[in-house]
């Protein structure tokens, strides 16, 4: 038995038959089935994802120290390697920590991707080929062919809008994986990470424009699950500065309502900084805003974008923000 046959037997066939059987429960809707199966598989992989995300975060935290080592021992590669290993050891971080869980999950992602492509059967040849992967379960035979229409989309054809959503959601996800800019971090590594943040979403957008939109739906569902997980594990990550900028822009939009920004961005922080100067009471603010809108606008314009968020995920990083 060659490796392809083993792959089909152990991974692909169970995935394909689960997908088809699940669709029977979900009113024959293939779109809904893709979303639900993606959630189930991502849920089952959660412990590994958690490990991977934590390891990634730990590696990101070490970046300034690694950059310092690079600067110090750049010319002596052996010494640099020794020092890096020592640093990893002391910090309890394994460089393979983020790679290994990802490698374990990889076959599952590939199988899910292949299963969706095969079950979608975009043309008659694909549908005939599907018969080679089916179990002799009555439910499987009764469910086929699946309904490729979902929310007005034909999942067997490419869809431009969904391709854009794939790119956007992947950009958000990539950005969240990135650590916020840390002083002292290796600029080369930062630049590489930034390139990836742009290139990956672009690549997937292009792919989605050519592939059946069922796959794009899978990528969107997967990205959304990823950034929800990411948020609960390490917060907004690289989106932090952007979020702050957005809040500032919003406050500028609402002319003279500087306290709106306060409410949006700082409401949660006032509670975690005992002893810090308190913002005026929100109920009192509303009347102040009406009475003195110019003052509010000036305040919003003058103050720099809040760089450090004291919201829950940030407080774990042990950084202190400037409270207005």
């Amino acid at each position, binding site marked *: 038995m060659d490796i392809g046959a083993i792959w089909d037997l152990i991974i692909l066939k169970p995935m394909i038959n689960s997908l088809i059987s699940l669709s029977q429960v979900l009113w024959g809707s293939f779109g809904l089935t893709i979303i639900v199966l993606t959630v189930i598989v991502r849920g089952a992989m959660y412990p590994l994802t958690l490990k991977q995300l934590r390891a990634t975060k730990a590696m990101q935290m070490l970046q300034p120290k690694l950059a310092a080592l690079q600067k110090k021992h750049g010319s002596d590669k052996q010494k640099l390697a020794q020092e890096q290993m020592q640093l990893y050891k002391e910090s309890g971080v394994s460089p393979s920590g983020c790679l290994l869980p990802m490698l374990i999950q990889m076959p599952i992602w590939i199988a899910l991707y292949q299963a969706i492509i095969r079950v979608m059967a*975009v*043309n*008659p040849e694909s549908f*005939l080929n599907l018969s080679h992967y089916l179990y*002799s*379960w009555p439910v499987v035979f009764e469910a086929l*062919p699946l309904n490729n229409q979902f929310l007005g989309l034909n999942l067997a054809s*490419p869809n431009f809008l969904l391709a854009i959503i794939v790119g956007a959601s992947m950009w958000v996800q990539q950005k969240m994986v990135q650590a916020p800019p840390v002083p002292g971090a290796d600029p080369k590594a930062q630049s590489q990470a930034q390139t990836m943040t742009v290139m990956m979403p*672009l690549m997937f957008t292009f792919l989605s424009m*050519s592939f059946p939109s069922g796959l794009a739906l899978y990528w969107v569902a997967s990205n959304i699950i990823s950034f929800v997980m990411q948020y609960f594990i390490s917060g907004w990550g690289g989106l932090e500065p952007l979020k702050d900028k957005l809040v500032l822009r919003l406050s500028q939009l609402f002319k003279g309502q500087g306290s709106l920004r306060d409410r949006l961005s700082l409401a949660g922080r006032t509670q975690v900084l005992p002893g810090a100067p308190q913002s005026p009471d929100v109920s009192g603010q509303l009347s102040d805003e009406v009475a003195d809108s110019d003052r509010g606008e000036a305040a919003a314009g003058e103050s720099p974008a809040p760089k450090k968020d004291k919201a829950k995920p940030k407080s774990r990083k042990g950084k202190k923000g400037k409270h207005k």
Partner: protein
Amino acid sequence: MRIKKKSLKLTAFTALIAVGVVITGCAGVGTAQAGWSGVTAGDGSVYLGSAGGKLVALNVENGFYQWQENLEGSTTSTGLGCAGAAPAVIYATPVLSGETLYVGDYSGRLYAYNINDRQSKSVLLNGASSKSIIGSPLVHDGTIFTGSTDGSLYAFDAASLTFKWKYDTGGEIWAAPAAWQNSIFVASFDKKVYSLNSQTGQPNWDAPFECDGPIIASPVVYGDMVIVASLDRHVYALDAVTGELLWAFPAGDGDEQGPSRWLWAAPVAENGTLFVAGMDGLIYVLNSASGQLAGTIDLEAPVAATPVIAGSRLVAVTDSGRIFSIDTTSYQKIELRNLDAAVTAPLGADNGTVYIHSVKESTVYAVNGETGALLWSTTIE
């Protein structure tokens, strides 16, 4: 200097995006389609739809080219709005009626070619929003019938291709319709078989017959029965007049761990016996009156191509190209030859010769159904 470097990077990046847009948006990377048109013989020629979207006529004696015509094809549009002409994809086996050859393509266009002067006319089913034609058309009583993936059976005047009527089923139609007296039988992905009046398109039965799986194989009329093989792995015999179920045969029942048991190929009837080839590699031999299993013939590989009767033998080809000849009374099989070529297109037969179209190899083989001798083979350009 720095600005220059930056702008160079930006230009390279923009160029990369542009190339990506062109490659993925306009060229496309979807699954290639080749169709699975079978071969039909008549009037000294064999006719088929090629993988390149051409209607091809070969000399029945030696396989030499007689003529070929490009079908119109379709205009494709990608997600980025890039449009281009795509060659026709032909799944339907051409049908010869008098001097006219009828065939449908995947863009939903039905063509009528005069084989003498090669003048053609065509009609796009259901206007511009037409779906695809996969099943072969049927000519009956001056009318041509064809199913579509939009779920409708269409009837056109065979001479003028003027629209007569259409009947909507609840699922895609991939099977060729069958005719008996003034009835047209059509099977659909909605798991139902319909009997329609060939003149009016009105249903003949009180209710369509319903089974548990979609039907891809064409219904076969045998005597006053309609035989249907379904993806639910059952063969059904229906009363052609009333639609009443006469018997049902479960193929591969009881082997839950076995391979797929789809019945993709249409049944073949001969001398009171039905031969039903399955994707499990078995040919089920059934008594046509009772549906009782008379025997099974193991071909050891899936069969998607509908077999044919050639002389006194049934000829079947597996999806890997192994050709078997089966005695229709003793059910003894002989392996005639191995083409080593994937075959999914229905077989054609004329005067004891079997015509096999391997779409993947773009080759037509003419094989003696009794001896297995290869009479000729022609590669379609």
